[in-house]
């Protein structure tokens, strides 16, 4: 048993109190340690991913208490993939935040950031349902602080909504866990899986209630219609780089659905058979449609990206709701793509909002308009799922996996039509923001309408290159995901295979030969 698995949780948990107790007044030092810590996390998680890619399931028993009595951390292909994705995304967001001085606009950004990472990584690694709840709370309480970072009336009010909604979700989570415990007497996921499968059929009514309650909780996190209402207002009013980090938070919900409903309430468990997938598929289709309509109707860039995040969750959940190894493999590929693309688009949106207002309307041209418009264009291609970027491959994989159900044409239709609408929405926003501002007559009218800009002595303020480095890093990730689609799909297919072969996981956790 190596101790590497616990490091992604312990390292941020040590760094954050260190920031607040020792170097709370030294932002430069905090930045250095925060970047160094996140770099170390990237290295550790990539190392763990290399270890997990052999197919071995590594189990870490906290306090050396054997499962199911103690809490275990489990490293399999799925959790390794998710933690590596989280830390890579976190590094890009952190560089962007430092480059744009977002961390100067409020207090304790780096502290909250590290706690957020701790919660995320813990949620992906844990093998215990109640421990999953605890890590959910850790990541949520850090996200409350990050969400209102920088203050401002609208942001604070959106923050209240976000917190209230998530507290309700947490309460529901506890009800669900209580129900499961009352029926099975355990909360260890592997043990749960065994006991659920062994339960006599006439005693399962309460268990099914628990399973559906738990699905509702994860659906809130994953912003599935009709439980998505918290997302547009929260993400659009949060600081944009924080929203970029939150791109992984909806994926925590998706991850939990994959984990619980393949391991515990798997497709071969008779009592909950069809209970989840049959409900999740229509909800996912509606989520995709609603997100897409929101993209078309948004009047500012932040809401536009927030709704496209909902849309991409819809596509992801369509793949998840099929619960076949092929579909889950496609879903995992789409998870990587959707996280990187959404985060990149939020960062591009921040570049725009920082230079002009975020509304999708005419405004005088902004500095670096050409570069930003190119990035916006590429991000829009990725999010709409057009070739040549990974969104296209992802959607293709999802649609190819949909042959197993009778509603295949409905799924194809919704995915293709929504792709078109997303494209129209982004094209409309992009041309209004970038092209109309170069319309000479219009620009002249705008200049006359407003007060002439005050003549500045030193020219435009110097622009840091670091934000663009961060955006290009995410873009490079998308390109790499496209170029190396073969190896990545091999990995995700192997991951799905491991997920649907539950005995390996259960035997590894419960220490059976």
């Amino acid at each position: 048993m190596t101790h590497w698995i616990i490091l992604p949780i312990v390292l941020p948990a040590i760094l954050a109190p260190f920031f607040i107790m020792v170097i709370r007044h030294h932002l430069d030092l905090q930045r250095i340690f925060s970047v160094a810590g996140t770099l170390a996390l990237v290295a550790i998680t990539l190392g763990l991913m290399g270890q997990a890619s052999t197919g071995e399931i590594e189990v870490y028993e906290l306090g050396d208490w054997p499962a199911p009595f103690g809490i275990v951390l489990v490293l399999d292909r799925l959790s390794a993939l998710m933690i590596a994705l989280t830390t890579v995304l976190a590094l890009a967001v952190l560089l962007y935040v430092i480059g744009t001085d977002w961390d100067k606009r409020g207090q304790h950004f780096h502290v909250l950031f590290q706690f957020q990472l701790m919660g995320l990584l813990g949620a992906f690694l844990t093998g215990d349902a109640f421990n999953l709840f605890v890590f959910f709370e850790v990541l949520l309480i850090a996200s409350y602080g990050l969400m209102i970072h920088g203050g401002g009336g609208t942001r604070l009010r959106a923050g209240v909504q976000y917190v209230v909604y998530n507290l309700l979700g947490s309460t529901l989570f506890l009800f669900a866990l209580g129900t499961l415990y009352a029926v099975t007497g355990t909360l260890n996921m592997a043990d749960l899986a065994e006991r659920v499968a062994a339960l006599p059929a006439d005693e399962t009514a309460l268990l099914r209630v628990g399973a559906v309650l738990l699905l509702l909780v994860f659906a809130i996190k994953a912003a599935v219609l009709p439980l998505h209402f918290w997302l547009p207002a929260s993400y659009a009013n949060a600081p944009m780089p924080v929203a970029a980090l939150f791109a992984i938070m909806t994926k925590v919900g998706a991850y939990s659905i994959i984990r619980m409903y393949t391991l515990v309430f798997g497709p071969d468990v008779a009592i909950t058979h069809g209970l989840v997938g049959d409900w999740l598929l229509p909800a996912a289709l509606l989520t995709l449609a609603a997100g897409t309509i929101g993209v078309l109707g948004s009047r500012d860039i932040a809401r536009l990206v927030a709704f496209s995040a909902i849309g991409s969750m819809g596509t992801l959940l369509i793949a998840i709701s099929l619960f076949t190894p092929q579909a889950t493999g496609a879903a995992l590929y789409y998870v990587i793509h959707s996280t990187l693309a959404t985060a990149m688009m939020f960062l591009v949106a921040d570049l725009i909002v920082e230079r002009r207002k975020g509304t999708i309307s005419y405004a005088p041209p902004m500095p670096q308009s050409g570069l930003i418009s190119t990035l916006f264009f590429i991000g829009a291609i990725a999010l709409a799922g057009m070739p040549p970027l990974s969104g296209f491959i992802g959607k293709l994989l999802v649609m190819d996996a949909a042959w197993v159900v009778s509603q295949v044409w409905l799924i194809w239709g919704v995915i293709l039509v929504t792709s078109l609408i997303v494209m129209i929405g982004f094209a409309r926003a992009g041309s209004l923001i970038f092209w109309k501002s170069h319309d000479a007559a219009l620009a002249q009218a705008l200049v006359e309408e407003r007060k002439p800009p005050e003549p500045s002595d030193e020219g435009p303020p110097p622009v840091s290159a670091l934000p663009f480095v961060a955006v290009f890093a995410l873009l490079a990730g998308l390109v790499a995901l496209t170029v190396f689609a073969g190896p990545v799909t091999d990995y995700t297919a192997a991951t799905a295979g491991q997920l649907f072969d539950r005995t390996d996981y259960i035997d590894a956790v419960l220490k059976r030969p």
Partner: protein
Amino acid sequence: MELLVASAVAILTASGVYLVLRQRTFPVIIGLSLLSYAVNVFLFATGRLALNMPPILTNHAIGYTDPIPQALVLTAIVISFGMTAVVVMIALSAFLTTQDDRIDMTDAAPDETTEGSETVPVTGDGA
């Protein structure tokens, strides 16, 4: 006893849900507290109700009460206490900034924002 616990959970949950649906932050926060009390009592009951039993199995005890729900409740109490404190602080600062404690955002005008460029006005179709 079972009836008492069950009706306590039911009444707390019903009142909590009613209060959460109110329009101002204070009743909503009270509602959240009631819901968290409800879930705490509910968690106790998940280990089955047992009177005057030790939480460990010994040779002398005639039975035992399940200790795990008690540990879960302790964790849940601590978390919900901390979360309530956070939501009170955020709601208070939102109220002090905007002079408005309504929880919906339909009337949030752009001029309510204290800072300009990075705060995006809400267009009115918020949750």
